[in-house]
């Protein structure tokens, strides 16, 4: 049966809560209300207020408290109401959660669910894609699924991982994408990219909502005989360079696509690694398609102009294919 991306997240949470009584959730309005996006609807009734905790409006305390519970071996799953507000808990994430294991050898099995991304007309404070900040911080793992199956499998893997994992769930995908998920424990391993579409002309390395857009670009370019390979990173930290390099070795052409701003985005790092490690395979410059260096704009016209999409990706991919 096909389910939505949101439903896949819900199922993963439900099954993990059911499986392991050390898993519990904290966040704002996740209980009675079922979460701003209704991801946790019905959880309070099933698991009770001790495991589905509505907190005060205190991101730093929420993350800090989750770290504390994780230190005691519990498996907290924090919901940020919007990923944008993770800025308010930034210090706890980068200074406390990320460094604990390196410093003291103490695991912090914590998941922070970060509903991120745009395309929902929600402006500068409810659309940001902040993953690059955390990519720079050793000790964190980052995942960003693009399909219901990956959403479910990665969330389960994240909850079982002994490290702090930020789980970037894309708000636009919540109800805009459907797909099959396997029954039961179909874990998607953290650290493994997946080729979502094999191709021979250009490697498009991407993640999150841009996977669909890249697949769309591939469709557009098919009639022109340009055959895109779409590599879905799925995990951003640690990066699966093996899969990336294999793809680029095959196609000789690489572009990186993400929704976050290009400047300082993860794409820079991937391109830089390719420029170093794949220099011999590359027949063309490495291109990046990403948002410009501006805050995320509100008005639909500006938002459309801001966000990468299938057309913009196709344009650059064509340029690259014809290089």
């Amino acid at each position, binding site marked *: 049966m096909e389910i939505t991306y949101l439903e896949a997240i819900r199922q993963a949470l439900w099954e993990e809560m059911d499986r392991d009584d050390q898993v519990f959730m904290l966040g*704002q*309005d996740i*209980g*009675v*209300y079922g979460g*701003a996006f209704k991801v946790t609807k019905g959880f309070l009734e099933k698991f009770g207020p001790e495991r589905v905790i*509505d*907190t*005060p*409006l*205190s*991101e*730093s305390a929420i993350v800090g408290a989750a770290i504390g519970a994780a230190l005691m071996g519990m498996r907290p799953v924090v919901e940020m109401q*919007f990923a*944008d*507000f993770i*800025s*308010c808990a930034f210090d706890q994430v980068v200074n406390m959660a990320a460094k604990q294991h390196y410093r003291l050898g103490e695991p912090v099995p914590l998941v922070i669910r970060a509903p991120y991304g745009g395309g929902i*007309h*929600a*402006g*500068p*404070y*409810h659309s940001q894609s902040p993953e690059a900040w955390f990519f720079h911080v050793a000790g964190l793992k980052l995942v960003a699924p693009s399909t219901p199956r990956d959403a479910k499998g990665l969330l389960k893997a994240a909850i079982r991982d002994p490290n702090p994992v930020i789980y970037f769930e894309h708000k636009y995908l919540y109800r805009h994408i459907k797909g099959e998920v396997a029954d039961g424990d179909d874990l998607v391993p953290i650290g493994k990219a997946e080729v979502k579409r094999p191709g021979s002309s250009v490697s498009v390395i991407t993640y999150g909502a841009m996977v669909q857009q890249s697949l769309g670009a591939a469709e557009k370019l098919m009639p022109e005989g340009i055959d895109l390979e779409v590599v879905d990173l799925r995990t951003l930290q640690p990066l699966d360079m093996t899969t990336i390099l294999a793809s680029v070795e095959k196609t000789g052409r690489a572009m990186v696509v993400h929704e976050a701003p290009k400047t300082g985005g993860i794409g820079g790092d991937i391109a830089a690694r390719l420029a170093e490690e794949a220099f011999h395979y590359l027949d063309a410059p490495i291109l990046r398609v990403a948002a*410009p*260096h*501006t*805050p995320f*704009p*509100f*008005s*639909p*016209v*500006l938002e*459309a*102009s*801001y966000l990468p999409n299938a057309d913009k990706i196709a344009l650059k991919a064509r340029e690259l294919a014809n290089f």
Partner: protein
Amino acid sequence: MPADNVTPIELLKIYYYLKLTRGLEQRVSTLYRQGRIVGGVYISAGEEAIAVGSAAALEADDVIAPSHRDLGANLMKGITPKEYLAQYLGKQTGLTRGRDGNVHYGDITRGVIGFISPMADLLPVAAGVGLAFKLRRERRVVAAFFGDGASSRGDFHEALNLAAVMKLPLVFICHNNQYAYSTPLERQMAIEHVADRAKAYGMPGVTVDGNDVLAVRSAVAEAASRARQGGGPTLVEGKTMRMRGHAEHDDASYVPAWMLEEWRKLDPIDRFGAYLRERQILDDAIAREIDDRLSKEIEEAVAFAEASPFPEGKDLLEGVYAS
């Protein structure tokens, strides 16, 4: 109602702004239901007296740091209904020229610090505006608004403490409307009055009937006068009720019906209208005249906003930096 020395003309002005606030927000709510609004809609119905009463207590060159239910104060500071509606429609004529949406606007030249989403973020900023007044020996005051929920954030604490230590000319004004999104007070704090938090900072804390516009005005006037004379900040809490959902997508089914019924009887506009009639400042003729003027102003604003152009995609990159 403590009318102090408020003249009839001023009283009518207050009445006008209360009604204008409600009328505008109702209109936006209707537009929302018709799908003519971009993004979410935040309504202050039932708690307009806090914003309007507070702003009525200020001098022309005082500054406000509004939160998301302070349309009344913004209007009194000179933000126009046209600007307000254009903002909601994501138009170029809004105060953010479509770069931001709904209640995220302001204009420092008119004494309105632009509101942003992360709750309580404006409180330290407001303290800084007050600091500028203090350093420049200007006898101006900042009124900074926030909700009960926002008072759980670290920035609330840091700002109030800083303002108290530095004796800054601030009035911190809380809409205690019983809920933060779906979260009732008792899950946000273990105290009865947000005003009790003042004790942690050594500043006066005052609780008033937030649905009595003159009580609010009077409490804020007293606090502002103390602040203006170098007596430092005050925390004023207005008890009120959020009479609608958190935003217009939220049916607030988690709010007990009896609560809304009780509070409806205390509607601040009804009460103030009755008071004005009792004092023979308002009668049917004046009320009709005001209503007519209001609907004209509101419909003109809607027409203006709908006729206004969207920003152009090509402007996306402009204005990131000041030059």
